[in-house]
């Protein structure tokens, strides 16, 4: 009896702390949703998320602003996904191939190459901006209507982080499986897509999701390489009206941000089960 009471009190405090921390973590997001219905003065007035005079103007402005027909929210969505989708697909494919090479084959200089690759993980993007810009410029890719500088590099497994993650994951897949498949007549390519890729699938989903999120949120990349306003993606569109000098309506910016993450949320939920598997699988087996 006593033990059970103590147990209940313990449980109570566990949940109390969890709920408290959870609320604190989630509150900024709830506030953001509330703030989309507020005027500027109210936004800076306090941290409550309820508003005395709710207005839908933020949402109306967000979907109607079109900069003289140059670019609207819908156009910006299409633009974003027209390079994000190829980017995600190519990142996953090229990273798996590179990781397969590093984890399953012994070749001269492998360890050194792997070391070099890992070292690029620590290279900040900002130091690459100018040399990359000069290179793409010599290819004539600046302001390319197909966003070439944004997705073509991902064909070459340039996302070190994912290659590294997949290499670690592949190491946990027993070689016996490869060998068994080889005995049954599989070549190295067939082993990859028949045996390894299916076992990797949670991890692949995780890579794809991360790349999807990062690419949607990328601001500097499109800013550097896209000049024509009608080709601007969402990340630039959201910020177009944010001028510190003249001031702007925050409710519109917040409404725009909220709308802009809806597709990402949808994708996240579609892939949720596999994604969470991917993270935990890596954690247990790694």
């Amino acid at each position, binding site marked *: 009896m006593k033990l059970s009471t103590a147990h209940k009190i313990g449980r109570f405090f566990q949940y109390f702390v969890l709920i408290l921390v*959870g609320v604190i*973590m*989630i509150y*900024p*997001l*709830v506030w*953001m949703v509330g703030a989309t219905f507020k005027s*500027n*003065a109210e936004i*800076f*007035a*306090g941290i409550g998320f309820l508003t005395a005079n709710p207005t839908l103007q933020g949402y109306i402005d967000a979907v109607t*602003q079109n*900069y*003289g027909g*140059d670019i609207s929210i819908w156009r910006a969505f299409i633009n974003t996904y027209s390079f994000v989708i190829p980017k995600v697909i190519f990142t996953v494919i090229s990273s798996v191939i590179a990781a397969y090479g590093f984890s399953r084959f012994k070749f001269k200089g492998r360890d050194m190459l792997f070391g070099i690759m890992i070292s690029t993980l620590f290279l900040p993007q900002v130091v690459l*901006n*100018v040399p990359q*810009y*000069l290179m793409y*410029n010599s290819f004539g890719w*600046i302001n390319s209507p197909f966003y070439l500088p944004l997705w073509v590099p991902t064909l070459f497994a340039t996302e070190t982080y994912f290659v590294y993650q997949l290499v670690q994951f592949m190491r946990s897949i027993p070689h016996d499986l490869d060998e068994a498949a080889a005995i049954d007549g599989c070549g190295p390519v067939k082993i990859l897509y028949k045996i390894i890729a299916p076992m990797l699938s949670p991890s692949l989903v995780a890579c794809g999701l991360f790349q999807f*999120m990062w690419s*949607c*949120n990328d*601001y*500097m990349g499109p*800013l*550097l390489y896209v*000049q*024509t*306003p009608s080709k601007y993606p*969402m*990340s*630039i569109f*959201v*910020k*177009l*009206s*944010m*001028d*510190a*000098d*003249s*001031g*702007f309506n925050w409710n519109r*910016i*917040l409404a*725009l*941000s909220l709308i*802009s*993450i809806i597709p*990402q*949320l949808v994708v*996240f*939920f579609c892939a*949720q089960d596999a994604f969470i598997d991917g993270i935990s699988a890596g954690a247990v087996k790694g």
Partner: protein
Amino acid sequence: MKKAISLGVAAAMAATLLAGCGTAASSAAPSSEAASTADSTTAESTAASEAAPSEAHEINTTDPIELTISWWGGDSRHEAYQKALEAFHEKYPNITVSPTYGAWSGWEEKQSTALAADQGSDVMQVNWNWLYQYSPTGEKFVDLREYSDVIDLSQWSDTAKNACIVADSLQAVPISMTGRIFYWNMNTFKQAGIEAVPTSYDDLIAAGKAFQEKLGDDYYPLAIGQYDRMILMTFYLESKYGKAWVENNECQYTEEEVVDGLNFIKSLEDNHVIPTRPTMIAAGFDSIDKSQEWIDGKYAGIFEWDSAPSKYQSALADNSGFTVGEEIKFGDKANGGFSKVSMGMAITKSCQHPVEAAALIDFLWNGEGAAIMGSECGIPASTAGLAAAQAADAVKPLVLEANTKVLAFVDMPLDPYYESSKLKDTTDGVYTDVFDGFSYGDYDAEEAAEILLDGVSGVLSANA
């Protein structure tokens, strides 16, 4: 039920993860008159308008020509430029101008990268310090005096033009000039029983006293941040001692004089004219227009760029009393204070059609375009442009009033390194260290003056 809750919580958490998209990086966007970290020699004072073009130019009105233009700004500026470009296309149907535009955030990186690859837009809205930073030897921007038969350069004053001469080349024409002035919320002043805007140091002190006695300790006639304090002190010193803050790459002030300036700021704090830095920092806002005290009228004054009042005005819960003040002359040797080029317009050397680009600049700032641009980029520095904008009623009267007052008052030059980020950075800049440290009582006036002078001479010698 359990599943529904857990799904809901997971949804919210995922949303937090994703929400970085539009909101996070937004607040830090610097003003478009941001840092002037200049890298090269100061402008030589050659008379800008005298040089004649080496050959006569004629605008091509027959062959199809493509130009590009870039600018940063907010919604209303984008719209004004777009309309002006349409009008330009009507006037020169053979010339197509494709724009690229965005917010200030990241814009300098974008343009500096493009300039490095000689891929900059043909016509570029530039920040003043870019001329020093990216084209110190005149390698990126065209000398506009070469096209003085296309752009009517006589519409700009020599002071304005000389500020854009870098490496003996007029690399840009100033779009607008800007300086600091006081704005007051007269509603609060009236509550304190004061009807007229302060015009002297004594008025300020009297206002401080009246605010404290009639309205309470939370009410202040003026609120100024650390960089505002530096500028106000410069105004004070230049007026009292009659010499520019920096001249010939050397600070002209002794430690005793700077101590006097710091004590002037201290006297404002002591007399309840301005809140101390600890008071302001404790209120927890990143700019005064977002502070509850400003919105509610408890802080009743600011010392700001003449181009910036609209956001302060629109932030006020009741903005009926928002008024442009008068410049205050603190000493008797000079008026003191400075104005600067808030932004300019340049032609890049990679431009294939500089004559037509020059025609575009002339159209935008001297011609019909100026009537459309109005005061979207500040009050036009070009005389003809301002006249056209006024005729079209496209100038915000408040901004014009402030700008006119500033330009009529200030009489000291601005050193291009005054706004070096080493000095004005809001976290570890010298000005911040000095004025916050002084207000918090970490330094006495002598120590603060020494740190300030060391910091300034350090920046000056690094750029000598």
